[in-house]
């Protein structure tokens, strides 16, 4: 479903991703673990299409189609969702307005009929409740004044209503206490299915206790240096990144 071949990415003229290969078939959940500076966020921003991430070599295909020549909004419509490590505050734009604009923008690009206010509210209300998101929170400007946990729950809400084919979650566990992590993990697990792929990017193993991956990859210095099943994460937690041949310890 998502296939990355020999990817090289420069940021500000410096090579951060250095020949990364990775394939996530549909129906599978993969995890990428890596120390600080390994290139985790660079990978997620590159996949989502952010300006300033210059692909110098390699290829990324998503559902059989070249991903890298697509605009960010087209990638979202294609079904790629990036859950941000640091969700952005947008003063003045109510969360509901934002969600509705996004859902209908994506539906329009997918050739589906836009939701009217009633249909949209019905969709959001149910999903928001599962994630402990109150009506009051939905009225507030996007992420403004939200706690760390609220921001991450808001990311998951966006993911759920946008109904993506592939979920890319960048350090979704950062800034979460254990209860919030449980809520977020439940939200993610509910989306697991035979047609959907997921890539969970994380520094720590603990999120993977709640979202159990099919495969685990270790990212260091811009490439995958080791792959294995879920036990690899536990082994990594025990031994530390240093034992896997990376000199940048966590």
């Amino acid at each position: 479903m998502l296939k990355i071949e020999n990817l090289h990415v420069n940021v500000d003229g410096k090579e951060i991703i250095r020949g990364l290969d990775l394939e996530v078939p549909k129906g599978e959940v993969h995890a990428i673990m890596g120390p600080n500076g390994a290139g985790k966020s660079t990978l997620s921003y590159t996949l989502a299409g952010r300006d300033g991430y210059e692909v110098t070599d390699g290829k990324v295909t998503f559902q059989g189609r070249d991903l890298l020549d697509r605009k960010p909004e087209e990638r979202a419509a294609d079904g790629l969702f990036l859950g941000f490590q640091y969700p952005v505050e947008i003063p003045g734009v109510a969360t509901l307005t934002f969600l509705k604009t996004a859902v209908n923008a994506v539906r329009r690009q997918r050739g589906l009929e836009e939701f009217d206010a009633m249909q949209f509210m019905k969709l959001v209300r149910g999903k928001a409740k599962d994630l402990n998101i109150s009506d009051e929170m939905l009225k507030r400007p996007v992420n403004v004044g939200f706690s760390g946990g609220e921001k991450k729950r808001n990311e998951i809400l966006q993911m759920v209503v946008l109904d993506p084919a592939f979920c890319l979650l960048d350090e979704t566990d950062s800034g979460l206490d254990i209860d919030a992590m449980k809520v977020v993990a439940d939200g993610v697990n509910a989306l697991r299915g035979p047609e959907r792929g997921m890539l969970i990017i994380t520094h720590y193993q603990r999120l993977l206790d709640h979202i159990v991956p099919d495969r685990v990859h270790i990212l260091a210095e811009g490439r995958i240096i080791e792959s294995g099943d879920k036990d690899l994460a536990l082994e990594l937690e025990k031994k530390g990144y240093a034992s896997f041949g990376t000199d940048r310890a966590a």
Partner: protein
Amino acid sequence: MNTSADTLLQTFPADADAERVAARDRFRLLGLPTPKQEAWKFTNLRPLEQFIAAAGKPANDAAPDIPAPLIDDSRRILIIDGRVDGDISVADPAGLSIEQGSHLMPEMGGKRAVRDLAIAMSEDGLRITVAADATVGQALELVFVGTGHRAGGHHFTLELSLAANADLTVVERHCGTQAYAATIASAIRLGDGARLRHVKVQDESQEAFHLADSAVEIGRDGTYERFILSVGARLARDEVHTSLNGQGSSVRLLGAYAGRGQQHLDHTTHIDHAVPNTTSHEVYKGVLDDRSRGVFQGGIKVMKDAQKTAGHQLNKALLLSPRAEIDSKPALEIYADDVVCSHGATAGEIDEDALFYLRARGIDAVTAKNLMVQAFLDEIFDGIADETLRDRLKDRVHAALQPGDNQDA
């Protein structure tokens, strides 16, 4: 000596009273302001001088384009090219009285060039008064329409006088087609406990010049709430001088402006806290695109005796183009020691992080940008209590920000 001043004064009436003559003489002596004067250092009137020098070109004779009301059921007065249209006089039991052709309260407003020009050359004016304790339920909508029929320009004087505990809502709207120069001098006096809500919409023709000078005096416990939306004119300056003369008085000045093309939009305000326990609150927000330029000058003066003054002032500008410009000059002059005053000015660009975030959710770049620009401005509209009016003004500013907006069409 000053040719543009002489041209502007060409049709000065022979039978003018002493006040007009004095205004004319001052104006003739000093002429139009230049950037050499501190108060005008960011606004150069040379394009206006050039327009005046070239005036005399054939006037068009299209019928004036009268816009739909901004407030439903308002009492409307049309002023076309500086002349009141039709018979508008009222003196109703509600305490509202409107007279035509009057001059300003002569003792008010100081001697500034725009004021002098408008007073010297106005062919018409309005004096609106509200009697003590009268609440005028029906909003008053003054619609100024410029047609470009009259080469050179048109000038007007407006007097608003609210006696003790009177209450009024006024919408002052300026629009038009073609090229013209419009000046307006206003004098606003609020008696003790009086309350005036004043919404000004500067939506002049994109070829027009708009120069306005208002003097405001507020008595004990009086409240003046002003909102200006500024989207029109090639060059506009809206200058407001407010004196908080009575204890417990307050003023709120809100402004939203949106410039495109080569528009120049200047908002200059002065607030004098003359006595103790007065409050001022001032927030202007602007969005500037293309090569447009915004100017914000905000003076707050707190006199020696004006203890317990609260003054707050903020100008925020969003620059959408690298060639857009904002000049912001807050100036606080404080002679009392027990006051709470703040001022701030920010100029920023679209937040790239937020833009990417919206795009990553499937919203295209243009829509995402619009959403953020509207959000930036919308906050200021919360200051308008009337929901219908608020929505209409929001729609207007959103339209003004779209490429290809042309009010003349």
